[in-house]
Structure formats: structure tokens, C-alpha cells
């Protein structure tokens, strides 16, 4: 069976001007199955976000293969969409117009775009805020817009780059619950990058721990907790056992 997303021996080095080269990824392997929710946790700067950008098609790996359904990724495409950590909303566009962005660039006619984006406004629970500008929204609402925008183009894969890192703790918990609801509804493959072990376990089918830079897979944990998951699951012994195991895998990689 062909994996949805496949990375084989991926290496990538950044060459920033006026500084030495930074090796972000080396010998990185990954398989993401169709419909799977896979999280990557790793220390800061381990290249996990970099890999997401490679899958998105914004950067190219120096060597190795990155495949989507067996075909090499050559650039951005409508089969993948990203939810960004800093939301990345165009401040001069309303909620509705922000959600339409991807459809607009795809060349979908205006009337049709309106219908689609309206539907996703409802899905992420933003009805009534269609005409608001981003600066009028809370952080959680902004990321709902970011999520709706990514979903609107109907991609197969949703890439999420620490999407809740900029939110406060309570909003974050609420958004995690919301994300699972939407994931069930939209049935997408999700590749999720985060710092938070608990968030990774709660959301995912599998959790990958990465090494420090240059990053590669250290260990993969299967999360066999039943779905649908509720908030109370976070205090069960099984959950805490996983949390401890992942922490042990991760802690040697963290340098302060």
C-alpha cells in the first residue's frame, strides 16, 4: 500500500547569508497513512517545521525523497494545506475573504467560493463573524479562520505547524477538542507539529519523537487510546504512561 506521505532519507541544510550553514534535517524517514493523525514532537529547532514546509512544497530538500501518494512533491498543490502557527491571516481581508483565499488562487468563480467559505465558517463555529477583520478576533477565533481556510480548498492532507502555540492554555484545550470534532467531520490526513507531549497524545494515532538538530526520527509511539476521545481521558493511567514514555524519549534531545 502506498503511504499518503512518505519521506525517505531526507536531508536539508540552510545557508543563511552572513552566517554559517545550519543542518536542519539528516536521514529523516517518515510514513503517514491515509486518514491518519500523526504528530511530530521534538526539541526547538529540530527541523520538524522545516519538514512540514518541505511537504507543503515551499522548500526543497537537498537529498532524499519526499513523496505524496508515491509522487515526488515539486511545489505547492491543492492536495495539501497548512495551518500556520502565527495564523497568517491577511489583516486587510474579512473572515470570509480570508477563507476564500485558496479558492480564489485556484480560480474558483466568486459565487461558488462564497458558498464554500460560508459552509466552512459554520463548520469552525464562526457564524456571525464573516465580516470581521482579523484584528477584531481573539486568538482562538483567528486560528479557526486559519483552519477553515486550509479546509476550504478540500486538501487530502492538513499540515499543522504548532497551530495552537500562540494561544493561551484554556483556549488551547478548547481548540484541541474542536480540532478532533472537525477532523472526524472532514476526514483528512493530518500531520501535526507541536512542542506539547500532551497535545500530541490527545490528538494523534501515532506520535513521532525527533532528535535534536540535524533532526531525524528517534522513536514512534502508537497511541491506542479509543476514539472519540474526551477531555477526561487526559487523567487516565494509560494516558500518563504514554506521556512518561514519550518524555523519556524526548528529554535527552533537549538542550537548554
Amino acid at each position: 500500500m502506498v503511504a499518503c506521505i512518505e519521506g525517505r532519507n531526507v536531508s536539508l541544510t540552510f545557508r543563511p547569508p552572513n552566517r554559517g550553514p545550519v543542518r536542519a534535517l539528516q536521514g529523516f524517514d517518515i510514513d503517514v497513512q491515509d486518514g491518519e493523525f500523526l504528530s511530530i514532537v521534538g526539541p526547538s529547532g529540530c527541523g520538524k517545521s522545516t519538514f512540514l514546509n518541505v511537504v507543503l512544497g515551499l522548500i526543497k530538500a537537498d537529498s532524499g525523497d519526499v513523496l505524496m501518494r508515491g509522487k515526488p512533491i515539486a511545489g505547492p498543490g491543492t492536495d495539501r494545506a497548512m495551518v500556520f502557527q502565527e495564523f497568517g491571516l491577511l489583516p486587510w481581508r474579512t473572515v470570509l475573504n480570508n477563507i476564500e483565499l485558496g479558492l480564489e488562487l485556484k480560480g474558483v468563480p466568486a459565487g461558488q467560493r462564497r458558498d464554500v467559505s460560508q459552509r466552512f465558517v459554520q463548520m469552525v463555529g464562526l457564524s456571525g463573524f464573516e465580516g470581521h477583520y482579523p484584528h477584531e478576533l481573539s486568538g482562538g477565533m483567528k486560528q479557526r479562520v486559519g483552519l477553515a481556510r486550509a479546509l476550504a480548498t478540500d486538501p487530502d492532507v492538513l499540515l499543522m505547524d504548532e497551530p495552537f502555540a500562540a494561544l493561551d492554555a484554556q483556549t488551547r484545550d478548547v481548540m484541541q477538542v474542536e480540532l478532533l470534532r472537525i477532523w472526524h467531520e472532514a476526514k483528512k490526513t493530518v500531520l501535526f507539529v507541536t512542542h506539547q507531549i500532551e497535545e500530541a497524545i490527545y490528538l494523534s494515532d501515532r506520535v513521532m519523537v525527533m532528535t535534536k538538530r540535524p533532526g531525524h526520527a528517534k522513536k514512534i509511539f502508537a497511541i491506542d487510546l479509543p476514539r472519540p476521545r474526551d477531555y477526561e481521558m487526559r487523567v487516565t493511567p494509560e494516558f500518563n504512561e504514554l506521556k512518561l514514555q514519550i518524555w523519556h524519549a524526548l528529554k535527552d534531545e533537549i538542550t537548554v
Partner: protein
Amino acid sequence: MSESRTIKAALASSDELAAPGKSLWHRIEPAALGIGSIVALLVVWELVPRLITLSAGTKLFFTTPSQVAGTLWRLFATGEIWTPLGVSASGFGLGLLLSIVVGLPLGVLIGRSRTLNDMIDPFITAFNATPRLVFLPLVMLWLGLGLWSKVLIVFIGALFPILINTYEGVRNADKVLINVVRSFGAKEWDIARLVVVPNAMPYIIAGLRLAIGRAVLGVVVAEFFGSESGLGVMMVQAAGRYQVDVVFSGLIIFAVLSLALTAMVQILEQRLSRWRPVHVSE
């Protein structure tokens, strides 16, 4: 930059003064003092020749606000102002328009390409430091006394504020937003249209405000030294004939034009910036 900071500082200190209980006067004090000083200046100016006997030589160069007002009225009532005003306005308008048409795309281009930026930077630094007026004799040599030398002088005066501000605004474009639209398959043109230009808009408008001032200066000077008609020509001729009231009338027309245009740009800015929580002070 300093202007907006001044305004903010003024607002802050007026808030401090307007302590609760202190009433009406404290709210209208700034305006009252501001208008008061202008009125006082005009009154003193008006009274000078009535209270002091001016020498004949000085009298020749002296006018009063009431005389200037009368002359302004006459210039408009007889309609003799319209021809020179039209000539000046067309030179001003064409030059400014040209500077926008050239400065905007060029600014975007330089802002988007590091190589181009590095190559053009010395030229921009050099021309921006140099008073563009230095090229006036050359421009007159090339284009003669007509409309087009005026247009060119206005153009090179107004170009740099627009170019530099556009370029600053473009360079300031949010990298994340650029990645967002690229991730949806945007080409360079889409990036400019969707992210770079809207982001640069406040800068561009600030540049436009500066450009208006430069353009007015360009028209005035170009007409002083090389033109057959226009407001500036009218003023030079009047100065030669000691018609000081006509000189001041021209000055006031220029001032009103430049203030009115600046105000229009400000209105445009407010309409275009509904999406912004607070106004960016360039």
C-alpha cells in the same frame, strides 16, 4: 514620523491637563490658543502700517492681510487667475501622476529583489541626498520652457518619496503571509497583489503625502526659472513690479492647494485602512 509623534505627545499632555472637574476651557484650550495666535499675527500685521510710519522704500514691499484678501478676491472674480492656475495644475498633476506610475512598480520591484536593491541603492542614496533642483538648468536645456520641463522637474522631485516609501513598505511585507499565499499556489504576481502591495499601502500613502509637498515645490521653482506662464511666473512678474499682494496671493493659493491635497490623501488613507486596529505612524 516626527509629526505623528508630536500629535500623540500633544494628545497625551492634553489628557493630563483635562483632569476631572476642569471644564470646557481645558478642552478648547489647544484650539483656542492655536487659532488665537494666528489671528493675533494677522491683526498685528494689519495694524503695523497704521501705527508706524513706514519709509517709502519699505512701503513698496509691504502689504497687509486685507490687501491680500482683496487681491485674491479680485483675481478670482475677474477670472484672471484661472489660466495661470490651470497651467501650474497641469504641470503638477502630470508630473505627480508620472511619479506614481513609475515609482510604485519600481519600488515593488526593488523591494522584492535583493540583487536589484543592492544595485540600485547607491543611485537612490545619491539622488535622494541631492536637491533635485540642481538638474533644473539641464532639464530646461533639454525640454525648453514649456509644460514638459515642468512635468519632469515635478516628476524627479516626487518620484523618490514614493519610490523609497513603496520599497520600505514592500521590504516590510510579512514573510509568513507570503508563505501562506505561496502555499496556496500563488505566483510572484499574486504575492504582490495579495500581500505585498496591501501591506505597503500605509507607507505608499505617507510617501504620497511627502510627494505632494515636493511636487508643489517643483512647480513653483520650475516656473520661477523656466516657464512662460503659470502661478509661479505670475508671482515672479509681480515681485518685479513690487505687487507684493499678488505674490502673497499666489503663495496662499499654493499653500491651500497643498493642504487640500494632503487632506484628500488623508481621507483616502482612512478609507483604505478600515482593517487596521491603529494607524501606522510611518
